[in-house]
C-alpha cells in the first residue's frame, strides 16, 4: 500500500517548549488512522503542521508522495480538514458557507453536489438557515460537509466529536466508517479518547509530550492482557479475601472500600465472572476499561514501546 502521509523526524519548538519532538509515522492509502494523545500531547500542533498552518522546526512531511513545503497547493487541493472546532461564518447560511469554502478550494461544484453534501450530513432542511442558529452538532456536521465538498483523497479530522452528544458522536463515527469503507477515503483522525479511535481506526499512533509512544495496527496494539477490570461487590473486603484464597489472586491489582481493581486477559473475564457467582460474591458492577491513561501507564511502566511498523 502506498503511503498517503509520510512524516519523518517532525519537530516543533515554541520558544523553550518542545511541542512535537522527532515524530515519524506513515499513513497508508484508504485506512482510518487514529492519532491519539492526551490534551497537550502535541496532536493539534502536528495536524496544523500537516495543513501548513504551523511551520515545522525540523523534519519533513510528504503527502500524496509530494513534499508539503514545495507542493502545498497541489496537496491541499486533495485534503479536507476540520481543526478543533468547526468554526464557520455565523452570519451566513449553511449553503453560503459551503459554497464559499468550495470556491476557495478552486473546484467547480454543481448545485446537485452541494445539496447531496448537505443531505449526507443531515442538514438539507437547514441549508438556508444562518449558522448562528445551529447547535454544536449541526456546526460539526456542516464542518464535515465543508471538508468533503471538493472530494478530497485525504480527510484530516482533529477531535471531530468534541462537544457532541452521544448521538452526534455515533453519527460522526458512522460517517468516518462510510467515508473509509464505502468511498475509499484516507482518514486521519485525532482524539484523546481511546475507545473512540478503537472503534473506527485501522491503525493508530499514540503520542505523549510530542513523542511517539506507540504505532501500529489497532488489533495488534490492544492485546487482551491490557484489560483492567473494576469490580464492585456487596462486601469488597470479603470478596478480596475470597479472591486471595483462589487461583485468581495473581490478577488482583488494588482494592479499597469502593472498588477492587484487577488486571486480566479479556478472554478470562467471563470465567472470572462465573467464579464470582460460584463463590457467592454479590456483584454490584463489573466493568472493563482501557483508558488512555492506563494504556500509557502500561506502556511506560513496562517500558515496552510498541512499534508494529518500525523499520
Amino acid at each position, binding site marked *: 500500500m502506498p503511503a498517503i502521509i509520510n512524516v519523518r523526524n517532525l519537530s516543533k519548538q515554541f520558544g523553550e517548549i518542545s511541542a512535537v519532538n522527532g515524530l515519524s509515522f506513515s499513513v497508508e492509502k484508504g485506512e482510518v488512522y487514529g492519532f491519539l494523545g492526551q490534551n497537550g500531547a502535541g496532536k493539534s500542533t502536528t495536524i496544523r503542521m500537516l495543513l501548513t498552518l504551523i511551520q515545522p522546526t525540523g523534519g519533513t512531511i510528504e503527502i500524496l508522495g509530494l513534499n508539503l513545503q514545495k507542493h502545498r497547493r497541489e496537496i491541499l487541493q486533495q485534503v479536507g480538514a476540520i481543526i478543533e472546532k468547526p*468554526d464557520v*461564518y455565523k452570519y451566513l447560511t449553511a449553503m453560503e458557507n459551503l459554497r464559499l469554502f468550495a470556491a476557495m478550494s478552486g473546484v467547480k461544484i454543481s448545485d446537485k453536489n452541494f445539496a447531496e453534501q448537505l443531505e449526507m450530513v443531515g442538514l438539507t432542511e437547514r441549508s438556508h438557515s444562518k449558522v448562528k442558529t445551529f447547535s454544536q452538532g449541526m456546526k460539526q456536521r456542516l464542518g464535515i460537509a465543508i471538508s468533503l465538498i471538493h472530494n478530497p483523497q485525504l480527510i484530516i479530522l482533529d477531535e471531530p466529536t468534541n462537544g457532541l452528544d452521544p448521538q452526534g458522536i455515533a453519527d460522526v463515527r458512522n460517517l468516518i466508517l462510510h467515508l473509509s469503507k464505502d468511498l475509499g477515503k484516507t482518514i486521519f483522525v485525532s482524539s484523546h479518547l481511546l475507545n473512540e479511535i478503537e472503534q473506527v481506526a485501522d491503525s493508530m499512533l499514540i503520542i505523549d509530550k510530542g513523542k511517539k509512544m506507540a504505532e501500529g495496527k489497532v488489533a495488534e496494539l490492544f492485546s487482551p492482557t491490557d484489560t483492567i477490570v473494576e469490580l464492585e461487590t456487596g462486601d469488597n473486603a470479603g470478596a478480596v479475601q475470597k479472591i486471595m484464597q483462589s487461583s485468581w489472586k495473581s490478577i488482583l491489582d488494588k482494592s479499597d472500600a469502593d472498588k477492587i481493581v484487577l488486571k486480566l486477559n479479556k478472554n478470562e473475564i467471563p470465567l472470572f465472572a462465573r467464579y464470582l457467582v460460584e463463590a457467592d460474591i454479590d456483584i454490584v458492577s463489573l466493568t472493563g476499561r482501557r483508558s488512555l491513561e492506563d494504556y500509557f501507564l502500561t506502556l511506560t511502566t513496562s517500558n515496552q514501546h510498541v512499534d508494529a511498523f518500525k523499520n
Partner: protein
Amino acid sequence: MWTLLKIELFKIFRRPRTYIAFAAIAAIIILIQLAFYSDGESFLQFGMQSLKDSFDINGKILSGYLVCFIILQTLLIHVPLLIALVAGDSIAGEANMGTLRLLLTKPVSRAQFMLAKFFATLIYTFLLLLFMSVLSLPVSISVFGTSDLIIMKSEMIVILDRHDILWRYFAAFGFAAIAMTTVASLAFLLSVFAENSIGPIVTTMSIVILFTILTTMDIPLFNALKPFLFTNHMLNWKGFFEEPVNYYGIFKSGLVLLGHILFFVSLAIFIFKRKDILS
C-alpha cells in the same frame, strides 16, 4: 485571485457591521445639511463678522460647495475610525471567529489571501468615500445651489470661482482615497498581530490621533517630525482649494502616502506568510 476577492467582498457586505459606517456617514452629513438649511445664513453671518468689518461682501455665500467643504473637513477626521473598523477586523476578526485556520487549509497562497483581503478593504474604503462624496456634493448642490467658494484660512482668504470648483472636489476625493487607504493599510498590518479586532482598531486610531495632535501642534520639536508623519500628508487634500494649487506639494504627499501603503501591506504579507496560525 478574482475568486478570492469576490469571496472577501461577499463576506464584507454580508456583515451587518459593514453598514454601520455608511449609516454613520449618512447621519452626520444629513445633520450638517439640515443644520445649514435651517440656520446656515445666521451661522455664516456670525462666522464672517470680523471679515465684514474690513470687506464688503455681496452675493450668495451659503452654497452646496461650501457645505460640502465643511462636511469634508468634519468627516475626514472621523472616517479613519470607520475604515479601521473593517480593515482592523480583516485578519484578526477571522482569527477570532476561528475561520482563519479553515481558510488557510485551502489551496490558496497566503500572499494571495492577504492581497485579496487588502483589495477588498480597499474597495470598501473607496465605496465609503464614494457614498460620502455623493451625499455631500450632489445632494448639497441640489439643496443649496452653487456660488463662488470662500474659504477662510488663518492668514488669508481664498475665493474660488464657481466654475473652477467641481474638479477640485474630484481631486480632493481622489486624494482622500489615498489618505484613507493609508489608514486602512495600517489597520490591516496591525490586524496580522492580533486575534481580536478591538486591538488593531484601537491601536490604529491611537496612532492616527497621536500623529494628528503632533501634526497640528506648532512646536519646533514636533515641526521637525511632521514630514515623517503620514497624518500630516493626509490633510493635503485641502491643497486643491488653494490658489494657485501647489501641485508639487500635493504630489509629494501623495507619494509619501503611497509609500506608506506599500510598506504597511508588504510588511503585513511578509509577517503573515511566516506566522504560525494558533487561533
